[in-house]
């Protein structure tokens, strides 16, 4: 059912375009750094999360989560561009199953997100944030799972929109709420009750929590057990891929 060649070429195409658009890498790297230092720096004076760390340290996993969220969603939303500019038709008439297209697109978003995560991790020593050596592969592994989950969710979103005008509504009504309800900026346990329940249906919450496990391995800043985090990410990834495959079927 899954055509390896098709999956491969869909990933290769996105990576090639990612490498060509140098500006995209710079701007996606700039965003987390701005958040980390402007928001983190400002808020550090106001809040102290305790547990022996500054606020800037506390939000670091959340900022990684944000990077993954934005880059995965954008990668999947490019499907709307492809629909508008025609290439999607070429892909849809090819003798390739819908699941191959979904897997190819989801993996390309995942790989691009993991590359960006890796670049941010590389910059850390220069920014004065210390990370233990083992945390790096651990973090990248979690980033992969989270990015795959968000990318496949992005594909479902993209199948519902036909043109680029819908872009700002996706940002305002899906991406931003997902970010603020994820525990990236504040511990989920401290949220008001309604928001806490909403946070629990947000896959990003569990991704950010898993990143907290990966980055602060000794400190107990997480809200859920790692097992729960990974379980939620894996199961929701499978569900999203299946839904995306069906919503891709011809209408």
């Amino acid at each position: 059912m899954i055509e390896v060649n098709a999956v491969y070429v869909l990933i290769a195409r996105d990576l090639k375009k990612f490498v060509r658009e140098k500006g995209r890498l710079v701007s996606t790297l700039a965003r987390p750094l701005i958040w980390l230092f402007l928001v983190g720096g400002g808020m550090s004076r106001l809040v102290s999360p305790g547990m022996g760390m500054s606020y800037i340290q506390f939000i670091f996993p959340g900022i990684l989560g944000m990077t993954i969220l934005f880059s995965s969603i954008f990668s999947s939303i490019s499907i709307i561009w492809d629909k508008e500019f025609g290439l999607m038709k070429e892909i849809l008439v090819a003798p390739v199953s819908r699941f191959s297209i979904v897997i190819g697109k989801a993996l390309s978003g995942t790989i691009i997100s993991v590359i960006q995560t890796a670049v941010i991790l590389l910059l850390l020593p220069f920014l004065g944030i210390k990370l233990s050596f083992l945390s790096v592969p651990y973090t990248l592994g979690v980033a992969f799972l989270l990015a795959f989950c968000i990318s496949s969710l992005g594909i479902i979103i993209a199948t519902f929109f036909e043109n680029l005008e819908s872009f700002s509504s996706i940002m305002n009504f899906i991406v931003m709420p997902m970010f603020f309800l994820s525990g990236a900026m504040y511990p989920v346990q401290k949220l008001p009750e309604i928001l806490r329940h909403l946070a629990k249906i947000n896959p990003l919450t569990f991704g950010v929590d898993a990143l907290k496990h990966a980055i602060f391995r000794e400190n107990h800043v997480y809200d859920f057990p790692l097992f729960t985090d990974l379980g939620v990410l894996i199961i929701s990834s499978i569900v999203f891929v299946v839904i995306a495959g069906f919503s891709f079927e011809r209408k």
Partner: protein
Amino acid sequence: MPIIKVENLSKTFDALTAVDNVSFEVDEGTIFGFLGPNGAGKTTTINILCTLLSPTSGKASIAGHDCVKEPSEVRKAIGIVFQDTTLDKDLTAYENLMLHAYLYDVKRNEMKSRIDDALYFVGLYERRDDLVKKFSGGMKRRLEVARGIIHRPRVLFLDEPTLGLDPQTRANLWEFIVGLPKKHNVTIFMTTHYMEEAEVCDSIAIIDKGKIIASGTPEELKKTIGGDVIYIRTSDNEKARSEIEKLFGLEVSEKDNELFLTTLKGDACIPEIIKAIGEKVLSVRLQRPTLNDVFLKMTGKQIREINGSSDDTIREAVRAYRRRHS
């Protein structure tokens, strides 16, 4: 052997019937022209054949595979050049073809040679490493034709391949298209609303408002409107007229000091007439019926007159349908 079979095919978008009980067959290795004004149902029919749309009723099959039940087999057997460009403008010409080759599972060791051949064929080999966004409209269309043949399809669909191109580019593109069946062993299914372009087709179906109103070879269709018209100016019209009528048994009329007569084989007839009334002839011209005349006779309208408005209606209806069903 028909390679495309369409039987009683219909497609309705809510109240609008885009394709209405259409049946036709296309023989292998031929060029088939599907003609009609914009909004007549050509693209809808192509989309059904390409497995992008499912029909409301009726059957369609390509190379023996049912378009609804075996979409994957049908997709392997066809190549398509859509009306709007479907290239990735941020990739090079070569990369676009590579993308296609991988999607159609072309063998790795054949990929490069097939892509190079296709690029040579459409004259874009020198430009293979340029980004497609730098290409002109005609180059993009040629690249799409090249892409369409890389996986050796048995049927190549061309939906309005020359739309929006300048006359010279159009002529160049036609040269490629006409050479395709022999060189690449492929059957061509093309749509156009330029009737004069359809002259190169082996067979034609004319569609209007979702229904097929005429079909046959271009010659057969043109015969239905009575054949060629010969116009003759002579030094003595009266005498020449009675001589021609007597010798050939044809009815000759006169208009603006010029005789004219309708006959099936105008080109063969002219020498005979000149032989008979030789010295009186001042000038002769032959007017062949065009497919435009055929369309005019069938529908009572010029094909150009109906373009535009009906096009917008059908696009609107399709869009509204999609919105509701997505």
